[in-house]
């Protein structure tokens, strides 16, 4: 043991108080840094929260306009929403929002946030826009974890598969039993090497159309069945 350490030990034996004061001053420094950190973060949050909220709104609107062309509605989609209860019809385990489009006050379309739980690796999140007459206006993948280079052609950034296969589709155009990929005897394209991914997407779009067909009245009748925001 070095001389320094010996001296230190002696000092702490002589004055047990110093341990306490050391502990308190250390705790004081820690608390001081916590306070400074909290103040800095709170200030940054206050300064940025409005900007963040508005740019997120913009991004959301831009996204919604991808599935529902602006010509098909004249209302503010973000203000005309309702909640789709959790319970699996659209694959959602939590409540999700759906957006109502209206043209001249009349219902023109609805946009669902849906989840396909049976992708190749995890959930595939989608936006599905259905026109009031039951025809699909557009489908986009919001988030997915499919294999890059194989299953990711469902993403519009990689291919226009989703556009080609779903735009203009409806329950009338394609019968229930044909809502499958071609490999399973249905009428939807898929790319070799990745069938599980499109299978999941086709299934959830089909479900969304059926959900719309069943709940059409409630969806557009304000204050009934489905909860108003």
């Amino acid at each position, binding site marked *: 043991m070095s001389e320094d350490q010996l001296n230190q030990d002696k000092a702490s034996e002589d004055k047990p108080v110093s341990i306490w004061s*050391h502990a308190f*001053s*250390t705790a004081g*420094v*820690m608390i001081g*840094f*916590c306070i400074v*950190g909290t103040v*800095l*973060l709170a200030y*940054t*949050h206050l*300064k*940025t929260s409005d*900007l*963040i909220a508005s*740019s*997120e709104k*913009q*991004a959301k609107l831009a996204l919604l306009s991808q599935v529902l062309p602006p010509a098909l509605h004249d209302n503010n989609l973000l203000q005309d929403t309702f909640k789709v209860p959790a319970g699996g019809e659209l694959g959602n385990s939590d409540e999700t929002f759906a957006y109502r489009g209206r043209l001249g006050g009349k219902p023109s379309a609805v946009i669902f946030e849906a989840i396909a739980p049976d992708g190749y690796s995890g959930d595939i999140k989608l936006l599905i826009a259905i026109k009031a007459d039951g025809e699909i206006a557009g489908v986009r993948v919001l988030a997915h974890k499919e*294999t*890059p*280079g*194989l299953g990711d052609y469902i993403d519009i950034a990689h291919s226009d598969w989703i556009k080609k296969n779903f735009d203009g589709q409806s329950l009338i155009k394609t019968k229930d039993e044909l809502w499958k990929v071609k490999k399973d005897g249905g009428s939807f394209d898929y790319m070799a090497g990745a069938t599980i991914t499109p299978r999941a997407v086709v299934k959830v779009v089909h479900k969304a159309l059926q959900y719309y067909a069943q709940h059409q009245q409630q969806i557009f009748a304000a204050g009934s069945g489905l909860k108003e925001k």
Partner: protein
Amino acid sequence: MDSKEIISNSLWKQNSGLVQLLGMCPTLAVTSSVVNGLSLGLLTAIVMAFSNASVSPIRKLVPTEIRIPVFILIIAALVTIIDLGMHAYFHALHAVLGIFIPLIVTNCIVLARVEAFAAKNPIAPSALDGFMMGFGLALVLSVLGGMRELIGKGTLLSGIDLALGPAAKHWVITVIPDYHGFLLAILPPGAFIGLALLIAGKNWLDNRQASNDLQGTPKPALAAGH
């Protein structure tokens, strides 16, 4: 330690990606393309410059016992501020890099440089060390990302339009047209194999340099003898 030494240490001798092997989580996860690797690397460099620069002036105020929690507090606060600031002012860029930014807190190279360098040195060299260490990592991430992207997809710089706007779309270089892709390179094993090759390459260069030096020195002596 002079700045020349700091720079050569950071970029080559003690490179955080190839020699210290710290921060493997982002190195392996994010480097599926050049743009991803370079973006995360540069962000890490900025965070490291700031974290080193802010720890250095307070290094004498912090008791040794609690230095690690204090350092982590500072790093986490800095990263959050950068994250919020980017989200508010550079929304498009944040949409692309947003998921990587919180990852920086978990990158141990940041804490390692704060602890090993900034806690013992004045502010200017500390900031330089932080930035250069991060830049060294950024270089490794870009090269690794480039290798994986080229072998996996046959392109370079794909996705640059997400970071710099649609105008940059024609910067994407298709090196091998009609390439069918080699999936292994994009998947996680590709990251391990690529990193191993890079480390082996660096060691080979270092060894060659060392043996050249060894062969080089006796020669003049021999020449003088004859």
